[in-house]
Structures are given as structure tokens and as C-alpha cells.
């Protein structure tokens, strides 16, 4: 499970990661608590999965200005 903390564009983040499938890594939205979004992933390396998710968001036209955190869920 990874955790994305973002105050805005949550719907777009969910849509983006639900449709993500690069480097064999996939995400599936599971839960939302306040500004935190939780995604299941098939990746074993959660640190790497979190970095992939962060990179995917940053590469979006709407993502470059977001201030957010992507990390393995605690």
C-alpha cells in the first residue's frame, strides 16, 4: 500500500494511478482519509512504487505545481 498526501486534484490522482501500468507496476485506489489517498500496488518495493507514482503525477500538466507527498503507507 502506498499513501499519496495531496490537498487538491485528488480525483485526477486517483484516475491517473488507477490507469497506471508502467514497469509492470499497477495501483488500485483503496481509501481516502482527509488529504491522504491510499493505493494498493502489485509492486514488492513500496519505496520504488511511491517514487513511480510521484513521478507520474509530477509529469502531468496539472501535477507540476502540486505540493504533495508520496510514500509507503504506514
Amino acid at each position, binding site marked *: 500500500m502506498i499513501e499519496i498526501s495531496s490537498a487538491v486534484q485528488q480525483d485526477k490522482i486517483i484516475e491517473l494511478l488507477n490507469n497506471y501500468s508502467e514497469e509492470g507496476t499497477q495501483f488500485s485506489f483503496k481509501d481516502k482519509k*482527509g488529504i491522504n489517498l491510499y493505493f494498493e500496488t502489485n509492486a514488492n518495493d513500496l519505496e520504488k512504487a511511491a517514487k513511480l507514482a510521484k513521478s507520474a503525477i509530477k509529469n502531468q500538466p496539472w501535477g507540476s505545481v502540486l505540493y504533495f507527498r508520496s510514500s509507503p503507507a504506514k
Partner: protein
Amino acid sequence: MQFLTAWLEKYFLPIASKLGGQKHLVALRDAFIGTLPATMAGSVAVMINALIRDLPPQFIDGYDGNTIPVIKEIITVNGYVWNGTLAIAGLIFVFSWGYNIARAYGVNELSGGIVSTAATIAGITFSFTGGITGLNLDQATVDAINEAGWSATATDITAAGYGWLPLSNLDANLFFTAMIIGFVATMIFVKLMLKDLTIKLPESVPPAVSKAFASIIPATVALYVIAIFYFVFSKIVPDMTFLDWLQKTIALPLLGLSQGFGAVILVALFVQLFWFFGIHGPNVLAPILEGVFGVAQLENVRLFHQGGAELVIAEGYHWVRGSFDAYAWYGGSGGTIVLIIALLIFSRRKDYRTVANLSVGPGVFNINEPIMFGLPIVLNPIMFIPFLLAPVVSVSIGYFATILGLVAPVSVAVAWVTPPFLLSFLATGADWRAPIVTLVAMLVSFAIWIPFVIAANKMDPALGEETEHDDQKYAN
């Protein structure tokens, strides 16, 4: 709060996204960031010289680092580092600028950097003249000077030379010219490259050669357009280079405007607002933070290298890019290290104390994601007022302390991960009063945060027990 977030997403974020994703502004931001290896290396040299040459005389009578073995050699080595970095910061930037514009358009980056550099340097004068009048020279001296290639009479000497690039045209003074000329030249180059107006070589030719050949026509056209512009400009304004004119009419007034209290506070306020709503403030405001305050800082660094803190105070800028880090963004944007301390002392909430404990380590190095998202501060209504107010007050304290001469202006670039007091000490060229100003700003911020931390205690009777109510409160 949910309504505000929805409103932001609908109306504000598209504008912020366009601004933050605008390829030229992104290229400009990346161009500044790209110069970091050089500017930081140069700043290290300035900082070491400040510590071994400029600081000791404040405490030790008769100290002169330039006469002490080993110390004087280190000072000389630092001089070389300076020569290759901050002394030519504008030159390094102009290449980085062209490179990043070309990269944004997906054309030959190296050629983009070269075109930008060549076009900008083309407008710099390579000759110099200078004279002394009111002399009383004997004939032998006049003859000797004339034979050496200068021009002398019994009362005047006129010196002239060719083949010199004035250093004052390659440092921070070059930035605004580079931003305009480098941009126009590189854009001409880019557009022609995209129109495929290129020389094509057989596929057997190595890629490096064919790429360079492909750039020849676009680069030549771009450089000729700029050269013709310089020519026309020299006819209209015969006594000035374009660089000098731009400095006088645009750059200096713009930098002057940035020094007003209102401008500084406005920038500080907007950065906080952006952060609070989950938008990367410094990224969106990079053209102002780096393009204006960053350039002012480079000028201060140059002055500091040339004449120490006294010259910066006399001729430099009071508020520059690093001033925000030194006096307001300790522990990260928002001065959150103070909040962490306030939480550890006054918070009775288990969740807040846990986050604060986890945030201390990163916070010392000005990394505040753990507290920004862990508490969270982002979109947390009770944190809104202190998160905006504390940095604005801190900036005011740092600003007026500098304006009133209580502390030297920031004149050394220091990595933002440097711990707070050390950061302001080093950034001001080892002014021992700077950490005291930082401490005063911190104490005032601390006082601002305390009531809100205590109020947060009262807001949650469960004191940190994870409840559904907890989950909802940030979303609403």
C-alpha cells in the same frame, strides 16, 4: 474547506498549472537551478574566505589572513574557484537558459545553449577606453606611453585596448540581457529547427556530426538576427551597449521595486498561501524568487567578494533570495521548526506529538514534508492563520533588521538544507548578529503558534485517538 478546495481546483489550479507548466517559465526555472553546481561552489569559496579572512578581524586586532601562510594560499585557491563560477555567473546562466529552452522544444539542447551564449556575448563590447587628465608629464614619459600603444600628451593619457571582456558584463549584470537576448535567439533557432530548415547529411555520418550540421542554418539565422538588432540599437543609442541600456532602464528599476517592504511581504504571503493549499509556492513563483531576488543575491555575492559586508551594505540589496531562508523559512517554508517545538511543549494530542517527534530530524535540515502532511498543516483550518502570519512577521523582522543596519544583508548563497542558525550566520558572510535576528524571529513565531497549538488541544477531546471524526475533519 471542501468548498474552497473545489473552488481552487476549478478556477485557480488551472491558472497555477498553466503558469507552473508554461514551458518557458519551466525552462527559466530549470536554467536557474541548472547553474547551482557553479553558484554553490562559488558560494563555498566566498564562505570559506569569509570565515578565514573576513570574520577573524572582527575579534582579533591586526589579523590579516592574506599574510598568514596556508590561510593566504587557501584564499588564493578560493579566488580561482570564484573566477570560474560566480564571477561569470551570467555567462553560465545564459548557456543553461538556451539549453533548457531547446530541451523544452525537443531540439538540439547543446546548440540551443551555444546559440543563446553566442547571441548574448555578441552584444558585449570587447574594447575599453579610459583616460586621466590634468597631468604634468615630461616629454620622455609622453614618448614612452605613445610608443607603448596608448595616447599621451603633456597633460592627458588616453588608454585604449581591444580583446577584453569586462567581468561586469559576465556576472549577475548579464542575467536580464541573457533572459531577453538568449530567449529571442534560442526561440528563432528552435522554430527554424522545428520547421526542419536544416542541412541533412547521409545516415552514415555519425550522429554528433549530423546534429551539429543540422543546427548550422538555424543558429546562423538566429545570430544574424540578433547581430542586426545590436547594429540598429547602436545607431539609435550610440553611447551604450544593449546590456548597459537594459540594466539602466529595466533591470535596476525592477530590482529596486523588489526591495520595497510591500513586495517582499507579498511574495512571502503568496508562497505561504500556495503551500497551504497544496501548491508548490516557490515553483509557481520561481520567475520572481529566482529571476528577481536570485539575481539581487548574485549581485550581493559579487559585492561581498569584492569588498566584504561593508560594500554590500553600501551598494547591495537588502533583501534577496536567501533572506527568506535565513529569517522566515527555518525548518522549511512556514518556519515549521518553531511549530514542532511548540507542539512538543504545549500539545496534549498524541497524534500531534508523534508527528512532531518524527519531524524534528528532517526539520533541523529544513525539510518539513513530515509535519506539512503528517499533522497536517495543508488545508488544516486551525493552522491557516499562524502558517500565514508567522512567516510574514518573521520576514518583517529580518527585513527591518537588515534595513536598519542591525545585521548585514544576505550575501552568500547557502544550501537550503543548512540548519537554521548556521544558515543565517553563513548567508550573511559570518555576521554573528544574524543568528540572533533569526532567534528573535523564531521567538515571535513561537508566540504566534502557541495559542493555535493549545486551541488544537481543545478541539479534540480524544487527544489523538484515531476516530472517524478525525478522518473527516480535514476533508470538511
